[in-house]
């Protein structure tokens, strides 16, 4: 019933328009390299003060979801040597595009994202109230435990280096302590400067690190020359063949099943879910299809894309019910709630139920809009992808300066923006992730308050922090998460090495063999292959050569073939150079 009321609000023409605006902006920033949803929410926050809270939150939710869709378009269509292939999960779509199957990759990503997003939003609508009802009962001690989990997972697990992640987190926490102490009104680390008395604004730090740092960093190593976007042809209704649907629907559902729960726990967010889905699809694939992994297997696009979107909805569970963000974008959404004086936490579903249900309803609506925006209208995003890079990064700087100036309408903030941006530049250069710093800055004050409340209750006895059964259980879960994620990271690097090795094999002899298979398999392979998709222990071993032939069939088209051949040899020379010394 509450959800229906939410729909009644979200379906008002004005809010539909705001949702459309949000998903448009979100998809655009998802498509464009160099900017992400976290930065966009940060930038728009000072610029949307004149909006009422519901409208603003709907816009931000649209940006959040839209960013998830846009990213796949870039990784599939942008032909950048090196980078896109370094993320295994982004690799399959790019390989498909190079083999002339970009349209199918885009379609399976968009439809999979829609299905996963919708199912995950349904799960969110049902799970969140229960979690909130449970969360109302927990006290400051448990909050401290939950936030320790969030800090450590975001800090230690998001980047590639644990120490660098923790350093970034600690820098964020340090900036968070600057300014007046909220409980005793004492000045801390203001160094006598009136500009530091109120602390440094979160929006300023986020925009500086995400936007200015990124622009400076890219400028230091800008890839020159034309932007190679792989063209997509044909009407969008014909993008996916029957065969593609048959091979995609199970990965979509599996991806959703993996993504949503992983999103709800603070375990590194969408990246982890994406990787888990990719790994399981690869494991479940059999015979010739398994060999396709690393060369453009549609399951390797369908599953991870679905998992990515399901995780995005999952992340909203701890955010809306506990007020604990587990990704940078979720952290910025939390700031948006704070700006509008909406206390996020267990009480949100009771006190602001109209707003929260309107938000959830707008997620359903936004998903539908995104499906339309990403299938028939994908051409727009391809054009956006081709914006000349000097203009793109100059524009990012202008927007960042605009956002910074609008925080307090003082040029000093633009100078602080620049200083923090230079910090962000060096962090990127030296491999420090910036997201933990932003999360630390946002959660720091809340964490300190809860910590001090806990210790005030226990009269300074720190043992109280771990003696509550729930808190103790949370710490045990933290240890389990850590052990699991280190194990997973090992698996991930093993798999990346394996895929790289596969690719090298594929470059030397594999690049030609699929074409040979096509000659034997022929286009009628569709019928045989569909009979046996990835069922465990299926007796259809004989169907697999045909199944493989279905996709490389596209490779025999004359145009894309040359593209893929050229790219393959380019990659191989890079890799050989790496291994020779």
């Amino acid at each position, binding site marked *: 019933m509450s959800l229906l009321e939410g729909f009644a609000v979200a379906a008002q023409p004005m809010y539909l328009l705001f949702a459309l605006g949000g998903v448009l902006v979100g998809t655009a920033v998802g498509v464009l390299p160099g900017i992400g949803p976290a930065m966009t929410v940060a930038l728009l926050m000072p610029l949307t003060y004149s909006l009422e809270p519901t409208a603003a939150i709907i816009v931000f939710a649209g940006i959040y979801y839209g960013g998830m869709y846009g990213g796949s378009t870039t990784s599939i269509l942008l032909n*950048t040597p090196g980078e896109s292939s370094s993320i295994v999960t982004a690799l399959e779509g790019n390989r498909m595009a190079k083999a002339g199957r970009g349209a199918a990759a885009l379609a399976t990503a968009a439809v999979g994202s829609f299905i996963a997003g919708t199912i995950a939003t349904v799960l969110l609508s049902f799970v969140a109230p229960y979690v909130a009802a449970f969360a109302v009962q927990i006290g400051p001690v448990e909050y401290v435990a939950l936030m320790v989990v969030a800090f450590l997972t975001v800090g230690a697990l998001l980047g590639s280096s644990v120490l660098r992640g923790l350093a970034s987190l600690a820098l964020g926490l*340090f900036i968070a302590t600057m300014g007046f102490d909220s409980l005793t009104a004492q000045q801390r680390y203001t160094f006598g400067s009136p500009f530091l008395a109120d602390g440094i604004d979160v929006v300023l730090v986020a925009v500086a690190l995400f936007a200015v740092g990124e622009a400076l960093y890219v400028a230091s190593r800008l890839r020159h020359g034309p932007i190679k976007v792989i063209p997509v042809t044909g009407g969008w209704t014909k993008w996916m063949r029957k065969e593609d649907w048959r091979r995609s629907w199970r990965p979509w559902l599996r991806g959703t099943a993996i993504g949503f729960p992983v999103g709800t726990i603070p375990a590194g967010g969408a990246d982890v879910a994406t990787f888990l889905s990719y790994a399981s699809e690869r494991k479940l694939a059999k015979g010739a299809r398994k060999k396709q992994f690393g060369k453009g297997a549609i399951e390797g696009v369908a599953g991870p894309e679905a998992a990515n979107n399901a995780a995005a909805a999952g992340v909203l569970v701890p955010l809306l019910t506990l007020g604990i963000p587990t990704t940078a974008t979720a952290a910025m959404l939390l700031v948006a709630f704070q700006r509008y004086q909406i206390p996020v936490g267990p009480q949100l579903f009771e006190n602001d139920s109209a707003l929260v249900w309107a938000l959830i309803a707008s997620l359903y609506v936004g998903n539908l809009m995104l499906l339309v925006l990403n299938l028939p209208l994908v051409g727009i995003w391809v054009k956006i992808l081709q914006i000349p890079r000097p203009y793109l990064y100059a524009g990012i700087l202008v927007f960042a300066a605009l956002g910074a100036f609008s925080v307090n309408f003082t040029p000093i903030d633009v100078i602080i923006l620049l200083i923090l941006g230079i910090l962000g530049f060096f962090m990127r250069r030296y491999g*420090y992730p910036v997201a933990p710093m932003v999360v630390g800055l946002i959660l720091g004050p809340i964490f300190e308050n809860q*910590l*001090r409340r806990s210790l005030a209750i226990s009269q300074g006895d720190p043992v109280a922090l771990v003696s509550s059964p729930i808190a103790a259980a949370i710490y045990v879960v933290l240890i389990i998460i850590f052990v699991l994620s280190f194990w997973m990271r090992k698996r991930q690097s093993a798999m990346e090495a394996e895929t790289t090795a596969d690719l090298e094999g594929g470059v030397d002899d594999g690049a030609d063999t699929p074409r040979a298979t096509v000659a034997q398999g022929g286009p009628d392979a569709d019928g045989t292959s569909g009979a046996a998709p990835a069922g465990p222990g299926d007796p259809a071993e004989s169907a697999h050569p045909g199944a493989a032939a279905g996709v490389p069939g596209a490779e025999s088209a004359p145009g894309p073939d040359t593209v893929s051949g050229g790219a393959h040899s380019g990659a191989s020379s890079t890799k050989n150079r790496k291994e020779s010394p």
Partner: protein
Amino acid sequence: MSMSTSSPAGSGTAAAPGRPIGELIFALIVISVGVVGFVAGASIQTPPSASDIGPKAFPYLVSGMLVLVGAGLVIQLLRGGTGVPEEGEDVDPNIATDWATVGKLAGFVLLHSFLIVPLGWPVAAAVLFFGAAWSLGARPWFRNLITAIVLALVLQFVFAGLLGVSLPAGFLEGFGVFSG
């Protein structure tokens, strides 16, 4: 981990021979922020009324974390564990750092901050866009200039005119559609 597939081994060393030193300086800065945290934290007053651990404890905790993590980083660096520079679609891992462009961009942001008040936001923004696009290699200059002016006016119109953000309009002060 993700290094394995990208940047060939030669590039890392060729592109930035000074990186370990730079990284070491960064790690030392992390430590020194922690040290400053302890020194400046000593002067934080704890009011006698404070019933809890007071305003000092958490800053000390964070400062301790900075010192410990920074020291860990220094040790890691001395043992040869350098960081993995971030990758991106527009980042070419094989070319040397272009410090001149970074400097020009930072300079134009600084210039922008000084121009907002005397000349108004649209002019300052157009200067920033024009300068940044030029620094990043966009040519010809008149196309950059036209783009910069159009962008600045559109932003001023949308954010000041439509959304009511108080951006100083400068020479456009008299026109209602451009002022917040």
